[in-house]
Structure formats: structure tokens, C-alpha cells
């Protein structure tokens, strides 16, 4: 794969033109195209509209979380708490909406606020206490998971209003569920802000060098806080979406999702040291994981083998990127 890649991720972090969305992620994009081509020829069912729409529904949760994770990784951070925050969000919503019979919309809003507050606490630990993001969010991962279980003493919450579940089921205009639409909209807005707005460019600068960014007058702490809050809120939204899809909320949901999310962002060409990456690449990374899972299911590959394959894909994607950068 390495030999077919062109351009350097670091060089073209900035878009412009028709292919602007995936600038800097040409390598992963080629991988995605090859994957789709392979699956189209090796199965009858892959290249159908129905299958495509199924995959879109399946990747919604991952796609929403990956947007927040992209921002965090771009500024040189990491957020390990997203899987736990997702569970906490679902449980808060379910508890308030079902067990306490609050208006369901209000329950959703509170769930999102709680999730954003988790991000706020992580952000405070990183900016004020100067804790490494890995440790701060590892702590938050444990705290949020614990609180999610405390709410109902570990019980799951089943059965939400029909209109809520329908958000993830009814395909408007024959193809678009509200949840998928939400994911697409969030991705688009994030892409526009990151690519074209000063605040987005500032995040790249913070990831490149915090000190350089600070001396240039960028409010590094405030932006860092903002990114963690947003990442928490998006993880919470993903929890709401997952609850709608499953018509239930469980304290154990989203286990290990933080690693899937980080994997999607990294496959999309982002660097864990910060400053390199983009929403376009992340979208490609999410699609690769989504299509790969889907295709392996269609090929009736066992879930155990699937884990191995996804691990290999992560290693190959990052190794190809590293090799290319070293050559360039």
C-alpha cells in the first residue's frame, strides 16, 4: 500500500478544491477503495443499497465519537473516557426519562450536559493540574463507568418512547435516518471549522507546538478545555444514539469503544503526537472499520478472526504512513 500513496499528510493539512475533504488522507482513501472493490467482487450482497444503509447505521456511534476524538488527538491529547461517558449518558437519559418519568427531551439534554461535564473535568485535569491526558482521561474512564453502574445498581433500562427509537429506524426520503443525518452534519461542520476557520487552524497549531501557539496569542488553555468538553458531549450524543438504536441503555455498553475510536482516527492518518490529521481522514477511517466489519460478517468470518484482521489493518495503516514520512 505504501508505494501507491502520494503526498504527505503533514504538507496538505489544509484543503481546497474538489478532493479537499480527504486531503492528507489519500493513502487511507486508496485503502478504502481497494477494500470496497474486493468486497464487491467477493460477495453478492456487499454492493447493494440496503447493505450500504445498514453500514451507515452501524457506524453512526463510532462516527460521532470519532469527530470528538479527532479534535483531541489533533491538539496532541487523547481521551480514553469516551466509551464510559457514552454509557453514562445513556444511563442518565434512561434513568431520568424512564425511571423518573421526566420529559424525554429534557432527559436527553441533561445526559448531554453530564457528558460535557465529564469532558470539562478531564480538561481541567489536563490544563490546570497539568496531568498527562492519558492519565486524566483514564481516571475519568473509571469514574464515568462507575457512576453509570451506580445509577441503577448495574441494571439495564429497556423501552424508550417510540418517537425516540424511530430516530434510528425510520429512513426519511427512503434512505436517511435522523441519527445518520446527525452524524453527517456533525462531520461536515467539524470539517468546515477545522479546515477554514481560525479556531480550527489554531487547533493544528496547538498540536504542533503548544508554546509556539501560546506565544502567537492563541488561548491554548481555553481551546484545550473546549476540545475536551466537545469530545465529552459528542461521546454523550453517541450514547443517546446507541440507546435509540438498541431501545435500551446498559451500564456496560461502549466497553472498548475508546480504542475503536482511536483506531479510526489513527487509520485516517492522524498522528498521536498531535498537529497532523483531519476530519476527512477520520471519516475514511470510520468507513474502513465499518465496511471491514460488515464485509467480514458477509464473508462469515468469525468475530475472533475479525479482531485479528482489524488489528492488522491498524498496524499496516500506521506503518505505511510512517514509512512514507521517513522516505519523504
Amino acid at each position: 500500500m505504501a508505494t501507491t500513496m502520494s503526498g504527505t499528510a503533514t504538507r496538505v493539512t489544509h484543503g481546497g478544491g474538489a478532493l479537499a475533504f480527504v486531503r492528507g488522507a489519500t493513502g487511507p482513501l486508496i485503502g478504502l477503495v481497494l477494500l470496497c472493490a474486493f468486497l464487491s467482487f467477493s460477495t453478492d450482497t456487499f454492493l447493494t443499497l440496503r447493505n450500504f444503509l445498514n453500514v451507515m447505521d452501524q457506524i453512526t456511534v463510532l462516527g460521532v465519537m470519532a469527530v470528538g476524538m479527532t479534535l483531541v488527538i489533533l491538539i496532541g491529547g487523547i481521551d480514553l473516557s469516551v466509551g464510559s461517558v457514552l454509557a453514562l449518558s445513556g444511563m442518565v437519559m434512561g434513568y431520568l426519562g424512564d425511571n423518573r418519568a421526566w420529559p424525554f427531551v429534557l432527559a436527553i439534554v441533561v445526559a448531554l450536559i453530564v457528558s460535557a461535564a465529564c469532558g470539562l473535568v478531564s480538561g481541567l485535569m489536563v490544563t490546570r493540574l497539568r496531568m498527562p491526558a492519558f492519565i486524566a482521561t483514564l481516571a475519568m474512564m473509571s469514574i464515568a463507568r462507575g457512576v453509570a453502574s451506580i445509577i441503577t445498581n448495574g441494571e439495564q433500562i429497556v423501552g424508550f418512547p417510540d418517537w425516540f427509537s424511530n430516530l434510528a429506524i425510520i429512513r426519511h426520503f427512503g434512505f436517511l435516518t435522523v441519527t445518520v443525518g446527525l452524524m453527517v452534519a456533525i462531520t461536515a461542520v467539524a470539517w468546515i471549522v477545522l479546515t477554514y476557520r481560525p479556531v480550527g487552524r489554531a487547533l493544528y497549531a496547538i498540536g504542533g507546538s503548544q508554546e509556539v501557539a501560546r506565544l502567537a496569542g492563541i488561548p491554548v488553555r481555553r481551546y484545550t478545555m473546549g476540545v475536551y468538553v466537545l469530545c465529552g458531549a459528542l461521546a454523550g450524543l453517541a450514547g443517546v444514539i446507541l440507546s435509540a438504536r438498541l431501545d435500551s441503555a446498559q451500564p456496560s455498553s461502549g466497553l472498548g469503544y475508546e480504542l475503536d475510536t482511536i483506531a479510526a482516527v489513527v487509520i485516517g492518518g492522524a498522528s498521536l503526537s498531535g498537529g497532523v490529521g483531519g476530519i476527512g481522514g477520520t471519516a475514511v477511517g470510520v468507513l474502513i472499520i465499518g465496511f471491514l466489519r460488515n464485509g467480514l460478517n458477509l464473508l462469515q468470518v468469525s468475530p475472533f478472526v475479525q479482531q485479528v484482521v482489524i488489528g492488522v489493518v491498524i498496524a499496516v495503516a500506521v506503518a505505511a504512513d510512517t514509512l512514507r514520512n521517513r522516505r519523504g
Partner: protein
Amino acid sequence: MTASPDPRGLDGGGLALRGVGKNYGLITVLSDVDLDVRPGEAIALLGENGAGKSTIASIISGLVRPTTGSMTWRGQDYAPDAPAGALSAGIGLIHQEMRLLLDLSIAENVFVGRLPMRGGRVDREQMNRRAAEQLRRLGLEVSPTTLVRDLRVAAQQQVEIAKALTLNARLLIFDEPTAALGAEETERLFDQIAGLKAEGVSFIYISHRLDEIARIADRIVVLRDGRLVATHDTAQVPVKTLVEEMVGRPLDRMFPDIPPPPPAAPLIEVEGLTSAEGAFADVSFSVRPGEVFGVAGIVGAGRTELVRAVSGADPIAAGRVRVNGDVLDLKGPRDALDHGVVLVPEDRKAQGLILPQTIAENLALGNYPRVAPSGWITSARIQAFAAKGVARFRIKGTGSMLVSELSGGNQQKVVIAKSIMREPKVVILDEPTRGIDVGARAAIYDIVADLAHRGLAVIIVSSDLDEVLGLSHRVMVLSRGRNRGVLDREQAGRVSVMELATT
């Protein structure tokens, strides 16, 4: 006076290079170099960046293999394929970029890879004792258990030197060793070198500072565009000749004429400024429009800390800074920037540039309102903005090049351009010419003159005293964090400044 290359054939002893060259693909960075270094001799390699000095150093120290030619060392063929090979042969390189393990102690850094052992365990007592001896030899008064991260740049460099001194090397290559050192540390290093020369150790010394080279080197070898252009006995060569050989053209003057500033109210006034970290106390001065104000002092005098505090980069405990009468909020760089105070920081790689990004991205940083007044930053607008900066500051490159690919001089121009494109009123330059070649240096002096001409206030900090004296209308001398006096251009000379600096 230009001497011919030395007669071939050494009587054993030293290092000899014959016809050494290096190509990377089609690009030749070094061609056909003959060079001899005798035991106990110090030779200086002189040349602009890209002239091939560092390539020679890398070849001799085993970092890079030559494409052509051969070397002999102490009478035997010498072809190291790794730095370890060079080290065991007794050749050590003290690199321009420090290679220290920041989170280990000084002692561990000095003995890394050859920790003294006793009974299967690291003998910390012996290690610390021997490291302390070396530090004392260098006159560094810190505990060997101090973490390298906690040392300032100058002290870190001394650890590198201490490390090399414990290796019992017979040939030491210094690549810009004094770039980060003040006058006192430099003197100490020179004493060390003189002592080691007497013991028969040879030196290859790379520096841009001609006055240093004149003191330290027995012979001077001038390189240009990868070729050896001249060899001189140090005692016989005028500085002007060297500079002209390096640049390849006659050099009329180094420092531009900067006319005295017109009488006017001060643009920036610093009153009783005191560092929150104890680096300086109660410093007051003011700078008028069109004035170049120098800040001199030895390393550790608090110069960098002072100018960082003035620009809001570091916290203060007391005092205030006024710009056009407005008191700055110095809790961060933001308010100072908004009032037109920009800092070109000391360490361009860590504080001035985002190395993995392009020239264009770096120039745009902090300049978004000027890149795109509408707030929509497109690739085309960034490139257009960068093209203006590249042209105005004569940066050798294009907007889409990575700054990490540029020479030190051009990187420095990018940092300066980024700041000046903010249209500031007060420009603070901290060590603006550290480690950059003569040509780029002259270009930066011209920029300073232009800023003064356009009515900006310029504050310049430099360890190069000639530079401070050559550019400034007035020079403030700091010593141990205090303002020891402000000298007018007429009064300011090497002696008067050093007298104040050492009080």
C-alpha cells in the same frame, strides 16, 4: 593570505582526509576535500550554512559515510560506519543539536552507555563523584543528580562537553559549541580546550563567530558550496578576507547605519519589572519609536527572562509595562500582542516554529485576521499571504515547503516574518542570529534597520556583543537580574559593557 593546502603525508599521528566527497543522489554536498589535523592542533571550519562544515563533521564522526575519498587516523585507514566506531577510535562529536536524555540526571547522561558498575549494579556513588569532578573542571556549580531537563540551555551544553571530556577522546569535533554560551562559559571552554591541546588532543571547531575562531584555532579552513576554498594560518589572516571568502563576494559592511531616533515620547516604558521566578528584579527602561535598544549581559543575567516577561510570555511579580501609555495585562502574551508587542523568541525550534508544518502555515499562525479578514481561511489565501512574506523577507523557499527543510537562517527569517506581519509597534528580538550564517545575519540586520526606519521600537538581546553594540542606539547591561546601567552608543564599548556585566 591564501596558503595552499598542506603538504600531503602526515608522520602518523593525526587525521587525514583525501578527496572526500558526499553526494545525496544528484546533489553534491561535499566534493574532493583534503584536510589534515595534527595532534594537539585545533583547526576551524568556516563557511556559511550549507557550505559542508557539518557534513565533514558527520563523516569524521561516523554519522555519514563519504561517497568518495578516504581517511587515515593515527597512521591507519579509518572508515567508521557508526558513531560508536568513531568514539572507540577516540573521535568524539559535540553536536549543535544537543543529544541529552532530559529526564535523567547529569551524571547518568555523562556516563550513559558506560555506567560504572560494582557487583552487577550501577555504582551510583562512583558515577556521581566522577561526574561532579567533571562539572567542577568546567566550573558548573550544580549537583550531578540534577535532572538535565531542569538546566538552562547553556548548562545543558556543558553537560555534553563534560560527557566528551570523560571519553578520553584524542580528537574532538565541536559544532557551534558556544552558540548557547555566554562570555564566561565560553572563556571556561577555551581554557579547557587549551589545556587539552597541550595534552595532544586535536580539535575541529565549527563556529560562525570569527573572534572565537581567531582565538582558538591554529589554522582556519574556509569552505564554500561543499568545496575547500582556502586554508590559513590563523595569525596571518584578516577577518575581512575570511568573510569575503565565505560569502564569495566582497563585504562592504556588516552593520547597517541606523539613524538616531527622532525626539519623541517613549513607545514602551518598563517600570520596576520583577520576575515571579526570581530571574530579575526592579528593571526599568523605555524605548522610543525608531530606536534600537540593546540588552547585554552574560548568560544567566536574566536577559531572556526579562524580555519574555515584557511580552507577557512569563509571569511577573511586580512592576508594569506601558505601551503608548496603556498598561499591559501581562498574565499571558495576548494583551501584549494586541498592543503591538511581539517577541521573536530565543529558541526558534521550540518556541518560534511548528517544525512539521509548512512555511505558509507558520506564517499564518497568529495572523489569521490578516490572512482572511472574512474569517474564512482557504488554502489559496494562506499561500497568498505566505508569498508576500517570502518575498518581503527574502526567505529561500516557497509557502508549501516544510520549515524543517530550511536552513537555520531561513527558519529564523520565517519566525521574524511571522511576527512582523502582525504589523507590531514594538519588536523584541531574543538572540536573532544564533547559529545562523553570515549572509542571513546581514539580512536580519537589514530588517532591524528597516523596522527602526519605519518608527518601530526594537529591543534586541544577544550574546554576541559586537552585534548589540553594532545595532543599538542605547545598550542596557543586566547583571544578576539587575539593570546595571544604560549606555549611549558613544559610551558603549566592549570594555564598558563587560565592566557593568560582571558587577
